[in-house]
């Protein structure tokens, strides 16, 4: 009774913010819809053809993979500027293994992923063990990895990739497979919802109204089938898009359901309190950087496959797009806040702007200006609406 007043007063504000942050993702999706509408209008409908949508998602895949890793780094209160260069380096290594060494595809993929994890570990050890701020480690890596890439490629593009390899970046899943996948995913969603309802009923916790859960499932189903249908119209779901969606599921799961994910948020919110609670914070932070390295490997593989070549300039400024996407998606500079799906919607915003502006022949310099403005405006909207000061 004694403490109820202050608690409730702040509680209300907090609940309001909670509600807002829950629906922030909807505000973002509305923003995407507006952007699409605008480009649809400006391109006389060309923007919303299945061919362009398919392209758009494919373009999104690479930055999306970086953003998935980056959002954990940012939630943990760190930053990694080296990912663009690392993407280039790992893509270059993939090209060398594939083209010069003629390694079979599984071996190439495994080696590149391992190398990504190794470089991520290196970055992470600099940060956790040697206590160099991650900003500096990233800045150093950005220069050094690009340097290594130039060294091993001799500054020239390595081409052409083997046909098997190119599938990672340019291939499509057959429409039939796409449909089957959609049905399976929907079945899985229904199953999860049903199981949650049963579990909550048993524990006498609050259950959503049946119609609400049903409506959510129907909505998910509609989105899923429209998505698959549109992509099937243009050859099927692109392999990199499928890969990205798979990784999205994995990362969302880590963030919301695992001990590791919870600890990332705890560390970003208050690393000292987390450490004093008996948690090995350095191990968690190291793991976050390792994951980031692995995501660079995925992105590097897809990028090289998409271009069918390893280019020395690949991935330049990739880190900036990924970081911008995380912040547009609601992650906080101070750590402790952010979502995986938010980061991906952030990527969707950026990719839509890139794609749409290119279609209506906006000069490259204007594209940069607009993207820069959107980033700052998005974070400003976030600051204003969440009532955070400073």
């Amino acid at each position, binding site marked *: 009774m004694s403490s*109820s007043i202050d608690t409730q007063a702040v509680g209300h504000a907090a609940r309001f913010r909670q509600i807002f942050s829950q629906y922030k993702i909807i505000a973002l999706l509305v923003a995407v819809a507006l952007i699409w509408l605008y480009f649809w209008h400006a391109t006389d409908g060309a923007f919303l053809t299945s061919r362009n949508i398919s392209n758009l998602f494919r373009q999104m895949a690479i930055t999306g993979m970086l953003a998935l890793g980056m959002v954990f780094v940012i939630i943990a209160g760190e930053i990694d500027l080296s990912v663009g260069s690392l993407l280039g380096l790992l893509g270059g290594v993939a090209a060398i293994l594939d083209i010069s060494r003629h390694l079979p595809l599984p071996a190439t993929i495994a080696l590149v992923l391992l190398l990504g994890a190794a470089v991520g570990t290196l970055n992470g050890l600099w940060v956790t063990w040697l206590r160099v701020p991650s900003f500096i480690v990233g800045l150093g890596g950005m220069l050094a990895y690009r340097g290594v890439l130039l060294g091993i490629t001799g500054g020239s593009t390595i081409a052409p990739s083997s046909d098997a390899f190119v599938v990672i970046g340019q291939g499509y899943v057959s429409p039939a497979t796409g449909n089957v996948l959609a049905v399976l995913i929907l079945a899985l969603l229904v199953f999860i919802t049903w199981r949650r309802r049963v579990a909550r009923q048993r524990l006498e916790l609050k259950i959503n109204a049946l119609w609400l859960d049903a409506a959510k499932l129907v909505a998910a189903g509609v989105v899923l089938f429209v998505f698959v249908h549109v992509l099937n119209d243009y050859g099927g779901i692109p392999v990199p898009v499928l890969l990205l969606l798979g990784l999205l599921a994995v990362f969302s799961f880590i963030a919301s359901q695992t001990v590791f994910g919870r600890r990332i948020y705890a560390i970003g919110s208050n690393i000292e309190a987390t450490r004093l609670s008996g948690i090995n914070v350095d191990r968690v932070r190291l793991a976050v950087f390792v994951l980031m390295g692995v995501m660079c490997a995925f992105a590097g593989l897809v990028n090289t496959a998409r271009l069918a070549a390893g280019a020395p300039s690949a991935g330049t400024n990739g880190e900036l797009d990924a970081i911008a996407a995380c912040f547009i998606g609601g992650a906080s500079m101070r750590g402790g806040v952010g979502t995986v799906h938010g980061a991906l919607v952030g990527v969707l915003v950026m990719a839509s702007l890139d794609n749409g502006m290119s279609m209506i022949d906006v000069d490259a310099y204007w594209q940069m200006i607009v993207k820069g403005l959107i980033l700052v405006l998005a974070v400003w909207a976030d600051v204003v609406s969440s009532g955070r000061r400073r």
Partner: protein
Amino acid sequence: MGTEPQHAVVDGDACLLRMRGISKSFAGVVAVDGVDLQVRAGECLGLCGENGAGKSTLMKVLSGVYPHGSYGGEILIDGVPLHAHSVADSERAGIAIIHQELMLVPELSVTENIFLGREIRRFGGRMDYPAMHQRAEALLRELGIDGIKVGQPVLHYGSGHQQLIEIAKALGKQARLIIFDEPSSSLTATETRTLLAIVADLKRRGVACVYISHKLDEVAEVCDRVTVIRDGRHIGTQPMAELDTHRIVTMMVGRELGQMFERKPHAIGEVMLEASHVTCLDVVNPRRKRVDDVSLQVRRGEILGIAGLIGAGRTELVSAIYGAYPGTWRGELRIDGKPVRVRSPQAAVRAGLCMVPEDRKHHGIVPLMGVGPNITLSVLGHYARAGVIDGNREAHAFHHEMRRLNVRASSPMLPIASLSGGNQQKAVLTRMLLPEPKVLILDEPTRGVDVGAKQEIYRLIFDLAARGIAIIVVSSEMPEVLGLSDRVLVMADGRVCGDFINDGLRQEDLLAAALALPHRIENA
């Protein structure tokens, strides 16, 4: 309950400050409800109430944190309405607030801090250091403070001195009304004496003071009148002469408080924790020893109090034992007879040793997380299989714990930062109980915690001891040390300078030991 507001007669015109019918609500929830408050020049008004009673909100209204128009009622300074739109406005009207958490910039010098925002400038915006130093020295001299060099960075001084620097800063702004918000919460007994003497001196010089404190003996000593608020409402204002601390507590909680310390008999068993020859070197200056060859033992079911002045090395000692000391340290540790190497809190928890740190805000809570997840943070693995959390089992666990320790929050997902200090502390305590420690270290377990929660925490500590946990309590509040402990160690200057069985032990004994020369070792 049922106490009608009682007003000591005060001639309204003679008042420096009159607050009339102040109301403030947040999102429809009333935090302060029609509170009246008057302070005369040269008077010290005590403002008492449990945490969450609305004291801070009231003072934030007064100091301009909540701008005019965002609250109801009116504020008169010398009979003139004050319409402050910012802290700067209220400062201009002569109101200064000294926060519980000191607001100095550690890297800047004492002078620079005192003049922050109103530097004396010379042509071209250069700072006039000689003039500022001179003025700063004069201010400190006026307060009768020795031992502060105005050119030194503030971080060289402990929180006691920093508080005095804050007061000098307030006086430098020509403050006529100074609000002290829990001023002694991080001060040692001697520093508190200095502070109280300075408040008395301020009164003599016609400065009005508002003294907010949970430490009622201080309120009784320095305040002329006391206003008690509870649940945002004005419960009463009476001259101190007609009150005693017991009566204030009754007004604060609205019920008669029984004994704060309901001691339970608990069996004391074999030695559970033995730390030998612990020495901690200062982080910045490794030649200085913060803890100098300290050895201690705690037995199963025993509550060991560690008393001492701030800077005596108590926190350093216990954080070294817990593996959390940031600097270099050495020493040996045995838990339950087995030698253990504790080089990190993680290792400590695994060895059955848990600690609730002193600084709740920076080292205790994970602010953005809900209360529930804060509680399960240390043992999340218990509710997980292969690293995947079973959300239902976790929710069940924190619901259960929150009920058991009476952690009051409308939802376990409410960010812990929005709770009162008492509820935060109970949550952090619960977190460190879930690993089921054999040894529990509590560093200032009731700092910034209201009376009700304090009593609950004391009861819990006795329960834990009765369950056979060895407990170390570090506290700057002598009554707390005496009320809780079976045995008391007194530290001064990094060494143990007193080891007492708590049997008829008095505060004076502890204080005498803490002030005694470091080489003298007593045994009672």
